[in-house]
């Protein structure tokens, strides 16, 4: 890292970038709630400009990260705490792909991967990421080159194949954290296996980082992770109120920091502010949907390129989508995180995400959320790109209706590739479903 590089990083990130992003946030805050949002929906949360500032700042740091820090690309469910403690800049390609989805450039970038021979039948996040690597195209300006890749199979096996492609193309070491799938209960030898892999990963990461892991720093990072995740869970839980102060669409947008900035003190601060704002909404009786008549649960990843369309379509009919298994997954494991035993607790925590558990567990989670939040129906996004999340939905859909009396809809789409979404068909199906709900 040259002195020129450090100066460039400092100027672009800490001076010019910081001032520019803060100014942008202040302007947005001053503009207040004069957004284009539908009159059926509450104004966006006041924290939204701060969320954008955090995300832009993260990608700005990423743009110049190679000048100052080592960079790790990691899967969204990977144990990230030891990497942060080693001062890696951590980038989440899945999150970047979601950004490509919301900014509607995913289709073009996927096309770059498809031109290189990657089938349209593989995950669109992976195609977006590989397409971005091959073409350099990204709405973030530029992504930092990784010095290390970390793939954890607790969300799917796809990430392993995807990261092998990255490792092969970029000639970068790949750490694999393999997490045996839990069909019923986690077995002790599986927990021990994950713990051992985590400990074996440290020397590899230390070698790349050219520094040793400081255990006190690891405990601090783990504490920040736990605090952020606990706050996130509290925010989600405020949806028990009627009207629900926050929608699942809001959750999809504001979950970015808990995914990609987990372990940072500023993330804890961010969610403390957000919780306060949500509590203000509860006190003022402000609902995410102005005339809340029905409350729905969402299953699976969002359809990133149709968030606004779906929010407005549902909002017009007084339907509030107030909870989701996806956003819940980033909060429900908080009690397992123990900063005093960072490796042991990480092994247990990172083995237990909903995606690493059986279809029956997901059904039980949906039933629990439905009861907790007073849900009237469920939309299950049958996501062509996410097979592990989607398999089981046909049965889950039928059982939610049969066993809980919850009208449930299986909606075919893809989380990032709009070519797998038929707006006409979706509108017809949603229209019929809302009629069934009586709104």
């Amino acid at each position: 890292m040259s002195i020129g590089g450090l100066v460039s990083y400092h100027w672009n990130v800490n001076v010019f970038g910081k001032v520019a992003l803060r100014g942008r946030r202040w302007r947005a805050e001053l503009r207040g709630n004069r957004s284009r949002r539908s009159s059926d929906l509450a104004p966006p949360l006041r924290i939204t400009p701060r969320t954008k500032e955090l995300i832009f700042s993260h990608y700005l740091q990423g743009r110049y990260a190679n000048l100052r820090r080592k960079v790790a690309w990691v899967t969204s469910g990977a144990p990230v705490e030891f990497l942060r403690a080693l001062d890696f800049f951590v980038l989440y390609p899945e999150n970047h792909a979601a950004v490509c989805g919301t900014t509607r450039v995913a289709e073009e970038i996927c096309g770059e991967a498809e031109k290189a021979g990657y089938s349209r039948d593989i995950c669109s996040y992976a195609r977006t990421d590989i397409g971005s690597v091959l073409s350099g195209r990204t709405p973030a300006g530029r992504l930092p080159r990784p010095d290390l890749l970390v793939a954890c199979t607790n969300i799917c096996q796809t990430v392993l194949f995807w990261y092998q492609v990255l490792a092969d193309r970029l000639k970068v070491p790949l750490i694999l954290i393999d997490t045996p799938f839990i069909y019923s209960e986690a077995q002790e030898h599986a927990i021990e296996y994950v713990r051992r892999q985590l400990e074996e990963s440290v020397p590899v990461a230390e070698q790349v980082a050219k520094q040793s892991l400081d255990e006190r720093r690891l405990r601090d990072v783990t504490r920040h992770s736990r605090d952020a995740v606990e706050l996130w869970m509290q925010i989600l839980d405020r949806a028990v109120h009627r009207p629900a102060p926050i929608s699942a669409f809001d959750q999809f947008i504001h979950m970015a920091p808990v995914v990609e900035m987990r372990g940072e003190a500023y993330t804890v601060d961010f969610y403390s502010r957000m919780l306060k704002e949500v509590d203000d909404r509860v006190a003022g009786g402000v609902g995410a949907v102005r005339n809340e008549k029905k409350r729905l649960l969402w299953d699976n990843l969002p359809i990133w390129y149709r968030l606004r369309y779906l929010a407005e379509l549902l909002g017009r009919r007084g339907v509030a989508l107030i909870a989701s298994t996806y956003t819940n997954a980033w909060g429900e494991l908080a009690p397992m995180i123990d900063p005093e035993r960072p490796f042991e607790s990480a092994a247990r925590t990172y083995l237990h995400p909903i995606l690493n558990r059986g279809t029956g567990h997901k059904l039980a989670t949906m039933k629990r959320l439905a009861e907790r939040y007073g849900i009237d129906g469920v939309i299950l996004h049958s996501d062509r790109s996410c097979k592990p999340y989607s398999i089981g939905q046909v049965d889950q859909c039928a059982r939610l209706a049969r066993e809980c009396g919850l009208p449930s809809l299986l909606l075919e789409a893809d989380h990032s590739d709009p070519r797998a979404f038929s707006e006409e068909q979706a509108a017809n199906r949603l229209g019929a479903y809302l009629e069934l709900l009586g709104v």
Partner: protein
Amino acid sequence: MSTPNDAVSIPRRAEVIREFKGRGGRVAAVLPIHYPRALFRAFDILPVEVWGPPKIDASSAATHLQPYICSIARNALAFVLGGGLDVADLIIVPHTCDSLQGLASVLIDFITPARPVYPIYLPRGNRPSDLTFLASELRSLSNRLEQLTAYTPSETRLMECIEQEEAADRWLADLHQRRTELPLSQYDLYRVLRSREFLPADRLCALAETIIARAGGYPRRDDIPVLMSGIVPEPMEMLRSLEKMGGRVASDDFACCGRRLYPAGRSSEPFVRMAESIIQGPPDPMRGCSIQDRLAHLARLAGTSGARGVVFYTIKFCEPELFQLPALRTGLQEIGVRTLNLEVDLSDPLSQSALTRLEAFLEMIG
């Protein structure tokens, strides 16, 4: 090529099952790909594999699985729902990919067939921790089999079964190695190789010995040799078509065949030995092998077998195969090995367009 294969009598799967059950044994229906055969045999359970099966009406699977799930999983489920596995006493689902993981979970949680469903998790690396984990996973499976059968095989019995399976694996490797000398058509060769999917080790050894005894003495074939890679050569008629077009499979990297030429384990501890054997098998994306390891393996297979090209015979929606495909094709083409990708669905008959592409490919490399 017409071959004198009439004398080769391969027992039928249904007969083998009937015979085995008739003398009091149990049958396990096993889904792809890797699992410890010896462990089942030690419990007097015959593992019988289910690769699809092809050419069945899989529409009933739509009541549980979406259409973008691969035909191996969909057909297997349709087969379960249609009573095709009623003969089995238990169902084993190795954790091969996200689709089979999901299928196992749906079976356990929602469909709950009359027979138990046991999953096995296969680690995705070959580090010491992976070996330790797999050995523990096999011990855990053994405990479940003990509960099911109310029988505990001795360590000696387990080692005997391991050695029998290792002997069968050696015979199988010999059949692969000497395939050009065997008096078998391509179709019959693969019937023999795939009889490993249901024959007990001793019968497989006897069959292989009979065939290999007749090896040689046949004129060396002048067909166009190709290396085939994929999951399973279904529908098998593809092999007849290949032969008619003047091609032959010089070597294979099929998940059901070449990727299961396991070396013998070394440990004297039976569970570690079984785990070693699986983990040290040929490169397979489902066991987490790197692209470069697989590329080197394919290049080596093509070189030693004299294959003039590689045909990737891919099952639609099979992510583990699809992710590696572009890099493998590029890597092989860089060393002068031409490649073709044919995508198939087990529920469909082999399309004429696929056969035309295969024929054109053979003409190009011939």
